[in-house]
């Protein structure tokens, strides 16, 4: 655990990708195999189920540290991270005579104890705490409660592994994807070819696009490019192998059971096929807003009503495997024509072809792009016709060309302290629009300001707070911000009656006064135009 704690500390404090990579490859070169497997698992979203809720951890920490609940809360809001708060509050150990236990020991213990009685868990956790220093406790608590959020991508894991196992990065990326269990898979098995062929659910690593950052004209002649709508759903791979259907999200989550609709494809799709596309709710081959999809993915069980109200389709735009053969090396043109062939023949409401947009000039495409929202899309994808299907985010052949966000001017009315590197700074804000002489809150946003601006707002909040509600301060409604968002949908869970998609602060309107902000009527108008 000590080594893993050191790794996490290095990854957490390092600001340079190279240093992080260095720390990871050092770890892979020195740690034991079982621990390495777990590190790969943890950083690719394969963590064991939570064995205990964080409220129990808090409770036991208060008990051990002899602190009242209000003071614990106060500390938590200042630190902004529960795992760290507990690590800081536990009494320090004076001597440590117990030998260091491995990362895999702890994770296997979590799994073993998942169904154990509360008392057994409590004893295990408290006695573990009492054998650890502050760093180890932090890491241990993080393993119990959630993600590390230290900016380690799967790509970085792959690049670090390249230095110790002698395989191509694309091969490693493929082998560590899919359906494997870190508690039963050995390091060698994980990276062996055999395991990859045995696991017939295994998806391919996704090819990801960069955003267009210059004029599209610089991409060259129009006829080298294929344009498609950029859908706002869940990127996924639809796989049929061994007469079974698998659906993987880009976050490498096996989502087959969440979408029973796809099972109807089992008998229709040819054997040995992998499609890349978007999981989107759809009626009459038209996409519905992402907000509707969210009402389904959060549920444990999908009800009949869900299936009726929010039917899911798969908008396919690529084919990666055909008749059991990996065809990622084929040119996009060739893959596309095969894809069109298959889907047209299948003719099924659940499996749709994501259409290609015909255009003859960049100007024309730019004009078409303006209608993205009406199409239920968030912009356009540009893919080089001759391109292969690559691994991860690569510059050059795939670009996303998103439309500008919707914006609205709003005033800040509540503030709360942030988390992580914004610990103990007021950086989480709630915004309101005008409704006659009232203010109606409609969005929360945490990002979009520079550190300097956050510091400025923080000091404003501290000087102008009106009331305290737990960690939340009501603030004099004075600071005006332009809020950007990707979409808008009706919602009866919010006072304003609207829910925004990915709201963030676009800029601080120091030039505007609070009475110059937008109104609730403006929001409602946007809902009418874009919310359907």
């Amino acid at each position: 655990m000590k080594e893993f704690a050191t790794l996490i500390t290095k990854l957490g404090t390092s600001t340079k990708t190279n240093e992080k990579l260095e720390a990871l490859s050092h770890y892979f070169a020195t740690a034991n195999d079982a621990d390495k497997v777990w590190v790969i698992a943890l950083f690719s979203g394969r963590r064991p189920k939570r064995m205990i809720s964080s409220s129990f951890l808090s409770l036991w920490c208060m008990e051990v540290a002899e602190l009242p609940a209000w003071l614990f809360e106060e500390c938590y809001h200042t630190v902004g991270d529960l795992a760290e708060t507990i690590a800081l509050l536990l009494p320090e150990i004076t001597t440590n005579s117990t030998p260091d236990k491995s990362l895999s020991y702890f994770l296997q213990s979590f799994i073993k104890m998942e169904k154990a009685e509360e008392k057994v868990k409590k004893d295990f956790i408290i006695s573990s705490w009492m054998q650890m220093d502050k760093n180890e406790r932090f890491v241990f608590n993080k393993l119990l409660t959630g993600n590390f959020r230290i900016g380690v991508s799967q790509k970085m894991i792959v690049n670090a592994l390249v230095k110790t196992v002698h395989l191509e990065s694309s091969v490693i990326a493929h082998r560590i994807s899919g359906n494997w269990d870190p508690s039963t898979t050995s390091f060698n098995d994980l990276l062996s070819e055999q395991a990859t062929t045995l696991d017939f659910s295994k998806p391919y690593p996704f090819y990801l696009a960069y955003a267009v950052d210059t004029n599209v004209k610089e991409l060259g002649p129009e006829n080298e490019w294929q344009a498609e709508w950029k859908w706002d759903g869940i990127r996924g791979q639809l796989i049929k192998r061994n007469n079974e259907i698998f659906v993987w999200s880009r976050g490498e989550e096996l989502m087959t059971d969440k979408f029973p609709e796809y099972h109807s494809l089992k008998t229709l799709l040819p054997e040995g096929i992998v499609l890349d596309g978007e999981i989107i709710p759809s009626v009459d081959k038209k996409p519905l807003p992402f907000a509707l999809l969210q009402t389904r993915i959060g549920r444990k069980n999908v009800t009949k009503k869900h299936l009726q109200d929010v039917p899911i389709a798969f908008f396919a735009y690529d084919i990666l495997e055909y008749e059991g053969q990996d065809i990622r090396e084929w040119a996009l043109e060739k893959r596309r024509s095969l894809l069109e062939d298959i889907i047209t023949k299948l003719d099924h409401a659940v499996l749709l072809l994501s259409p290609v947009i015909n255009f003859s000039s960049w100007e024309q495409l730019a004009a078409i792009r303006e209608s993205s929202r009406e199409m239920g899309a968030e912009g356009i994808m540009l893919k080089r016709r001759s391109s292969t299907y690559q691994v991860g985010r690569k510059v050059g052949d795939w670009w996303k060309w998103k439309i500008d966000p919707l914006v609205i001017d709003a005033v800040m009315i509540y503030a709360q302290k942030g988390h992580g590197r914004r610990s103990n700074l007021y950086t989480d804000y709630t915004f309101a629009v005008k409704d006659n002489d009232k203010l109606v809150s409609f969005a929360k946003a945490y990002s979009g300001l520079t550190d300097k601006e956050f510091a400025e707002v923080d000091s404003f909040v501290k000087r102008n707070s009106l009331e305290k509600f737990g960690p939340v301060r009501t603030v004099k409604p004075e600071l005006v911000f332009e809020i950007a968002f990707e979409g808008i949908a009706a919602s009866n869970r919010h006072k304003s009656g609207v829910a925004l998609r990915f709201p963030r602060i676009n800029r601080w309107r120091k030039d505007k006064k609070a009475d110059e902000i937008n109104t609730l009527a403006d929001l409602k108008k946007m809902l009418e135009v874009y919310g359907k």
Partner: protein
Amino acid sequence: MALVDFTSNGLYCSAGDFYIDPWKPVHKAIITHAHSDHARWGSDRYLCHTASLPLLKLRLGDVPIDAIQWNEAIHINGVKVSLHPAGHIIGSSQIRIEYNNEVWVVSGDYKTEDDGISGGFEPVKCNVFITESTFGLPIYKWKSQQEIFENIREWIMGNKETGKTSVLIAYSLGKAQRVMQCIKDMGLKIFLHGAVWNVHQTLLEARYDLPNAERVTPETPKEDHRGQIVIAPPSADGTPWMKKFSPYSVGVCSGWMQVRGNVRRRNADAGFALSDHVDWSGLLNVVKATGAEKVFVTHGFQAAFSRYLNDNGIVAAEVKTEYGGEEEEQEKASTTTEQDHEINTENEE
């Protein structure tokens, strides 16, 4: 009647007609220590500890300042006043006021661990204790100076091995001198930012035993500081001034570094929770040791600390002062724009 009132000018003793660390110009000010938020400009007459005198002169210029020793009682308008070591920085003092058999103590800023240069803190028995609370939450528990010093030295040696200059960020008055004690016997050269240099010179003139150090100037050859140590104030962190030390690694020395988020926010390569303020358990111990019947809690986590005291049978109240904002002496997230030639005006910590 209260011996000390909390007025809009600052802490005021009406019986003796003087102020303690006033934030507006007054006729007579007793100063706990020479940090800018406690020693403000513009008063007619100042009183401080002898060790504070040169530092106060550096800060305030040539103004009338009287100085006394610790435990040396004087009388002001019939009020008995004495200074007692606070352990915060060189010359920092608690102020004891006695009148009509009642004793009040104003702590100023303090820490309980003896850092070897600021004088060892001594709790003073009193009826009413006015305490700071910069780090008044139980998440703040300091490691010993010895342990942190070892960590700093290890980090410096690691940087040296990879050819990097170690840039230590420390407040020019207080923390910088403390850090120098840590690194003086490492056999490495010590370079100082102008703000740290000014304080260093002042203390050398006052015959303080400080290690040899060199001021960083535009003419300093690059090879000179490669793999060596630079001490700079927080205001220099992240400015173009740092570029000339490249390749370098930044280590921030501040109690705020106790929390990881602050280290990340500062973009520091390393954070050392080395504080000149008392930690949570230190606060509790000191409050008990004073035997005070009533405690006023100023700058820091005053709401939390006073509530905790009240819950535990010690009458306490929070007091708003102008030693900063709500949670003052807080990290000022890169908003300071001091120049190299100025002496630093930021708060300690």
